[in-house]
């Protein structure tokens, strides 16, 4: 009876609510994470492990494939940020303006690519950008009187395909985030803007943009993580982990190659740890830059 009373008290209740999280955190996150970090200092071979100190890390920093992978991932992240923040924002503003008709239809169509799996969408893009005579892009080239291109062999065109896949899949989702952000802006602000004689650009610059900041922070955060850990997209477009001159090799791709394709688990874990450090640093910079660190406190008032 007493036990029940304590369990039902307002003091204990929150702990009961968060208990599953704490358990899951310990069992499915902290334990594997620590094992991973420990393994990065080991050589692992069919259950037999031996300590090798920082040898994995020393090798890592001299490994040209790893350097390529890091730059590819960082560059991909940066480019997706450049594409996936401003474009959806402008599209959302345009969509929510009174100008656009049938916006429900456009929203649904733009969202559909996000529902497809990377496996199928990557395959569709690979066939589209195929170097064969019958890929759609080459058919278009022929219509323009141009010869066939080996799209996925060159870095520039290969990356166009990769970025296009990203834009194709996620524009609709990001537009939706911005549409939600716009909906939460008080319309009376625009009315007072009208009264003050502000033009469309001024209203966008001084009302919309600042008030969309929380949305922008959220979109940037998810894009940073998604960009840094991109793997399957490249894996599908280049039909595997081997792209010409490694133009499509990413950090997670390299982790996968070393750990799973080549059975060098210790080395792969070192790659993973470096990735984690990069993610944490970027995350930290971004949180400081956007002032999100105070988010928890703001909530209280």
């Amino acid at each position: 009876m007493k036990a029940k009373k304590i369990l039902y008290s307002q003091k204990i209740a929150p702990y009961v609510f968060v208990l599953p999280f704490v358990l899951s955190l310990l069992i499915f996150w902290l334990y594997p994470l620590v094992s991973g970090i420990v393994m990065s200092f080991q050589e692992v071979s069919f259950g037999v492990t031996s300590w090798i100190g920082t040898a994995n890390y020393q090798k890592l920093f001299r490994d040209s494939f790893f350097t390529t992978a890091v730059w590819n991932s960082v560059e991909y992240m940066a480019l997706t940020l450049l594409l996936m923040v401003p474009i959806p924002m402008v599209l959302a503003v345009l969509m929510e303006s009174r100008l656009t008709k049938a916006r429900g239809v456009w929203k649904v169509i733009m969202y559909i690519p996000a529902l497809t799996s990377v496996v199928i969408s990557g395959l569709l893009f690979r066939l589209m950008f195929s170097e064969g005579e019958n890929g759609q892009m080459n058919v278009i080239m022929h219509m323009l009187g141009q010869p066939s291109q080996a799209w996925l062999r060159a870095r520039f065109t290969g990356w166009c395909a990769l970025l296009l896949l990203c834009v194709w899949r996620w524009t609709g989702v990001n537009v939706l985030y911005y549409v939600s952000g716009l909906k939460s802006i008080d319309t009376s602000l625009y009315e007072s803007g009208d009264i003050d004689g502000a033009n469309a650009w001024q209203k966008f610059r001084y009302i919309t943009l600042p008030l969309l900041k929380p949305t922008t922070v959220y979109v940037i955060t998810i894009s940073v993580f998604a960009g840094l850990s991109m793997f399957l997209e490249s894996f599908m477009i280049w039909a595997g982990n081997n792209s010409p001159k490694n133009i499509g090799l990413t950090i997670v791709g390299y982790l996968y190659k070393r750990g799973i394709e080549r059975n060098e688990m210790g080395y792969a874990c070192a790659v993973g740890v470096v990735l984690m450090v990069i993610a944490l640093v970027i995350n930290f910079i971004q949180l400081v830059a956007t002032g999100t660190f105070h988010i928890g406190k703001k909530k209280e008032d």
Partner: protein
Amino acid sequence: MANNTPKQKTMAANHKVGTFFATALFALISALIAFPLVCGLLGSFRDGQKVITTGMSLDLKSPVSLQNYQELFAMFSPDNFSDDVVVNSRSYFNWYKNSLVLTITTVVLTLLVCYFIAYGLSMYKFKLQGFLFFMVIATMSVPFEILMLPLYQEINTIGLINTNAGVFLPGLCAASTIFFFKQYMTSLPKELLDAARVDGCTEYGISVRIMMPITKPAFASMAILCAMGSWNNMLWPMLVFRDTSKFTLQIGLNTLLTPYGNNYNLLIAGSMFGIIPILVIYLIFNRYLVEGMTSGAVKG
């Protein structure tokens, strides 16, 4: 209309031009976005290997057939072995069923668990609150691939290998879902809680009877995202499942790509048909999606 000033008239005209261009722009974007999917859809009705030899063209004149779908649903009729035993571990509908069961279980359990965690994190003030919320964010920033191998060994030891639970348990307390629910609930008035307490409701009663109905839009938007993730997930389930009979749709479709050649025609047909359930869920919950997002994560 009669007493419109000339200025109003030009504005109306401008507005009309603007409407035309804005709408045309979205129509164009939608067409471009639909293009690969339409190609895929048409490709799924092309004859067998034609998809590869002639490409996935928009050519409407080339013959259309249901052959791929027939073959997919029959999966596979063995023709080269007459009287001998034929090992045929492929059954499209079995994959489909497994995926449905796994996705529904995952979505329902994840939403409920994450809801209660978020409720605890946002409705009370307690010692570990700040730290735990920080950990929610922290788990989001560690890529799953790093945890994969140790996690696999762990699942093996616990004995969850080859079970649905082994697939969804590690991801049950999804950080992004908790984060979303928490953001959503923080914006709700807490006075309701006190009123309910006065009425003699228990803490747990309040969370179910008072708060849950209010968070309906958040549930809807998370249901879509969670279902998408689960339905399309492949890497982890592939490691956990050992029985061919437990394969999900995504794993099964991947068995069509073999070193002996790729059954692209079946893969494309199978994938196109596989979008249906997730599309249905999306269309059902679509109207809640923006509503849920508006009051959820994107509020600072």
